[in-house]
């Protein structure tokens, strides 16, 4: 368990008198008086930060980690942390034949050619080393393999206790090896010397994230300004920007209406800091959605908009369906997410009825004895809904679906047998594949000459171009962990 004692904390308070000149160009390091000094400063406290930090402190490097939120661990503590590993002990034990080519093929298929091959290979070739390193720090994995969608063999290991357990274990390891961490400390700006080398960061301690602001990065002025010096490197392990509605709507207007299950602090502020010192923005328009329900089951039901009308073929992958849903919401000018409805036959056809049942227990999906209860609950017009359902059934009997659904695949599902089951179908933006471009040693490259910006690294979800069009399930964790280790090794080279 993480212990509060381990967090260096100053006096609390959001007291602020003089406005901070957050955008002032004070990034010339010469005359700065530094308040803290460490070999390496890591910004962020998720799994990429913690793996990198653990590797460094194990090699006697003095590391200071900072996190802007109260919560340690960003999206990493919300994550299940399913973890794709090539030739893990579990794969070998189970006699599963896997190979670099097979794994690469799967990554390329999902990435659709947008993925940088050298990064795909970095993930594949180092995944087992990363998994073994995490185990050596105390992270526990279940004694079974998962065969997940998009993978051609069973290769994903399951983190016991998910991201929460992983991060608290790594944090304990980090602290035990003299690592230091400060939460509620926000990095505002990267400091360079005259030669352009990164020598530190300016931060605000006692910073309190304010979820009520439209844009916390620009509007929140809390905290006390300090300067931290890094002898060797500054590492940005700052995650994605899935909660930054303003920014994601600029890089891709389609993302405006998406819901996000991400941690509240997933904003683009850190990305902008890296761009300011010359990093290359890469594939920022891409998205990755989660759906709250296995999308392969949607074919057994219908999806209706707020007017109780169907608008798509329910048979699709989460990426395609999410795009269609968001486009339709824009078109009919609503912020209300559609509803997915099953009757009792469609519900029973689900590939994992126990899991469906667990959605009901969790309150995510609801069971209705009558159509009018369902309509009332979701504020749908009952007559319109009833007509939509009848039209769907007529289509089934004529073997011709209005939205060209392949009815031979629906296993005799219908839309008239009570009880009915329904839930909101909200595309959840849980991961942003775009970020800054880094080489395979995770050195951030400069847009003016494609050379590494000296002293600056980026790892994990903060980087872009790694996964391409669509990230394969359970492949962020191996990305975060292998990039964290690659970065640590590159820093150690210079010692």
């Amino acid at each position, binding site marked *: 368990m993480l212990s509060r004692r381990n967090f260096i904390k100053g006096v*609390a*308070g959001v*007291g602020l008198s003089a406005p901070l000149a957050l955008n002032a160009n004070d990034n010339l390091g010469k005359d700065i008086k530094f308040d803290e000094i460490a070999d390496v400063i890591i910004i962020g406290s998720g799994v990429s930060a913690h793996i990198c930090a653990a590797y460094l402190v194990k090699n006697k490097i003095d590391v200071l980690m900072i996190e802007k939120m109260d*919560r340690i661990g960003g999206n990493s503590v919300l994550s299940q942390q399913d973890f794709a590993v090539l030739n893990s002990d579990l794969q070998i034990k189970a006699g599963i034949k896997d190979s670099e080519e097979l794994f690469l093929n799967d990554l390329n298929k999902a990435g659709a050619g947008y993925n940088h091959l050298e990064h795909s290979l970095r993930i594949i070739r180092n995944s087992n080393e990363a998994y073994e390193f995490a185990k050596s720090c105390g992270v526990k994995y279940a004694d079974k393999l998962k065969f997940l969608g998009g993978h051609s063999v069973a290769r994903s290991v399951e983190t016991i206790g998910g991201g*929460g357990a992983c991060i608290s274990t790594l944090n304990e390891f980090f602290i035990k090896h003299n690592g230091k961490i400060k939460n509620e400390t926000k990095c505002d700006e990267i400091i360079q010397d005259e030669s352009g080398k990164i020598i530190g960061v300016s931060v605000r301690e006692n910073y*309190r994230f304010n979820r009520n602001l439209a844009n916390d990065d620009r509007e929140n002025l809390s905290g006390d300004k300090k300067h931290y010096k890094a002898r060797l490197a500054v590492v940005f392990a700052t995650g994605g920007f899935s909660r930054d509605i303003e920014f994601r709507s600029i890089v891709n207007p389609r993302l405006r209406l998406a819901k996000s299950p991400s941690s*509240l602090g997933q904003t683009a502020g850190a990305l902008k800091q890296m761009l300011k010192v010359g990093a290359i923005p890469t594939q920022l328009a891409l998205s990755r959605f989660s759906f709250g329900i296995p999308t392969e089951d949607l074919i057994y039901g219908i999806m209706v908009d707020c007017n109780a009308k169907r608008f798509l073929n329910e048979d699709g992958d989460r990426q395609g369906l999410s795009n269609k849903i968001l486009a339709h919401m824009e078109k009919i000018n609503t912020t209300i997410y559609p509803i997915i409805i099953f009757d009792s036959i469609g519900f029973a056809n689900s590939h994992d009825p126990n899991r469906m049942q667990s959605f009901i227990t*969790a*309150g*995510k999906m609801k069971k209705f004895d009558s159509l009018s209860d369902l309509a009332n609950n979701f504020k749908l017009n009952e007559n319109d809904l009833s007509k939509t359902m009848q039209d769907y059934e007529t289509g089934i009997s004529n073997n011709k679906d209005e939205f060209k659904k392949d009815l031979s695949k629906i296993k005799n599902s219908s839309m008239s047998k009570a009880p009915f089951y329904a839930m909101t179908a909200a595309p959840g933006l849980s991961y942003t594949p775009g970020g800054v471009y880094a080489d395979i040693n995770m050195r951030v490259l400069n847009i003016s000459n494609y050379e590494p910006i000296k002293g600056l690294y980026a790892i994990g979800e903060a980087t872009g171009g790694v996964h391409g069009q669509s990230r394969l399930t359970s492949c962020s964790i191996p990305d975060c962990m292998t990039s964290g280790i690659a970065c640590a090794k590159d820093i150690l080279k210079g010692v």
Partner: protein
Amino acid sequence: MQKLLMILILSIFALGNEFAIKPHHVDVKLKCTDCHKEANEKDYKALDSNSCLSCHGSKEKLAKRLDFLKGKNPHNSIHDNANLNCYTCHNEHKPSFNMCNTCHNTKTWMKEIK
């Protein structure tokens, strides 16, 4: 009762409605100065968790009280253990905020938070 009213009125009028005190704290006759130690009102700052814990005991104790929620204990969750600050969810002068709700439907297991 009269005293209670007095406190209520005082606290409301002293700083305006913006800094009204929650009913359960009014019940135990809390005054502004019980939490805010600064001499001058205009120096009052947002509190840290230790101020809350000086009455409420330790985070571990608070977590124990909700042990019956098993894996869904907001004071000792699988994501954060007992590491969050009180003010991440609880507010005194404005409505509290259930962070679990940003991803989970908490209605089935949690009351509205104070």
